């Protein structure tokens, strides 16, 4: 791990824009290893073309977010997280 790593709170704004609510306390379960953490506690990579939230145990991708000038898109791979609105997929 290095200085580029933040926690999932770094994605709070983008997630609130998508879901219309604070998502950082929502629990997310890794589809690969089963580890459960609140979204705000996931490992976040934000110095990239998008935001990537990964499992704290096995680094599997749990959520990806890309913000383009016209829309924000999300790909949820973790379990337990409510499905995002159709317009953000």
């Amino acid at each position, binding site marked *: 791990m290095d200085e580029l790593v933040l926690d999932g709170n770094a994605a709070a704004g983008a997630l609130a824009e998508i879901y219309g609510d604070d998502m950082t306390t929502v629990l997310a379960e890794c589809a690969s290893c089963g580890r459960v953490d609140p979204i705000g506690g996931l490992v976040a990579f934000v*110095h990239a073309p998008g935001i990537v939230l990964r499992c704290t145990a096995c680094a599997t*991708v749990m959520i990806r977010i890309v913000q*383009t*000038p016209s829309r924000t*898109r999300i790909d949820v791979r973790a379990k337990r997280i409510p499905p995002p609105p159709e317009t953000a997929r």
Partner: protein
Amino acid sequence: MPQPFITRGFVGKRQDAGGAAGRIPPGQHLVKDFPVLSAGPTPRADLRTWTFRIEGLVKEPAQWSWDEFRELPAQDFTKDISCVTKWTKLDTHWRGVSVDVLLEHVDLDRSAAFVTAFSDGGYTTNIPLPELLNGQAFVAYEYDGKPLAPEHGGPARLVVPQLYFWKSAKWVRGLRLMERDQPGFWESLGYNNHGDPWKEERYSGD
């Protein structure tokens, strides 16, 4: 921008005139440092087990160990690079193996038209095959005369300098030849399948 106090007596390189003009794609700004972008943790490859592989629509896959890869004919490349996050860096110096050299070791199926580059950590990116040919792309293992640092994709990264730099997959472990374009890690979530900086092909459908 006015530049007061510069006289004709100074003949050193000017930073933004001459050479740089016309080399910075639209919407980009010039940087002197080398920003590090990553979608995941930096893998630390074990060179004893590292391999580079060409697979997919080829008669027989080709695979090299690290030592074998380092014995392939290498070249020096000086290239301008542009990241979709809007920085451009001029005259970056690399050493590595041209993709042309790698493809000499396989018989390509005639239907091969696209490539997925795949990396340690699961990253993928898709590139039209012609963008990798004729000396345009290479697998680099040195930057500025030193072994390529892990944060910049070492031990080896793909470099496709004429496309946005997310196409230049860090920690690359192989190329998969395909008939159809298959969106990679960023392309599957809205980034452009082609990614030409001069056409500002940043996103798909925008």
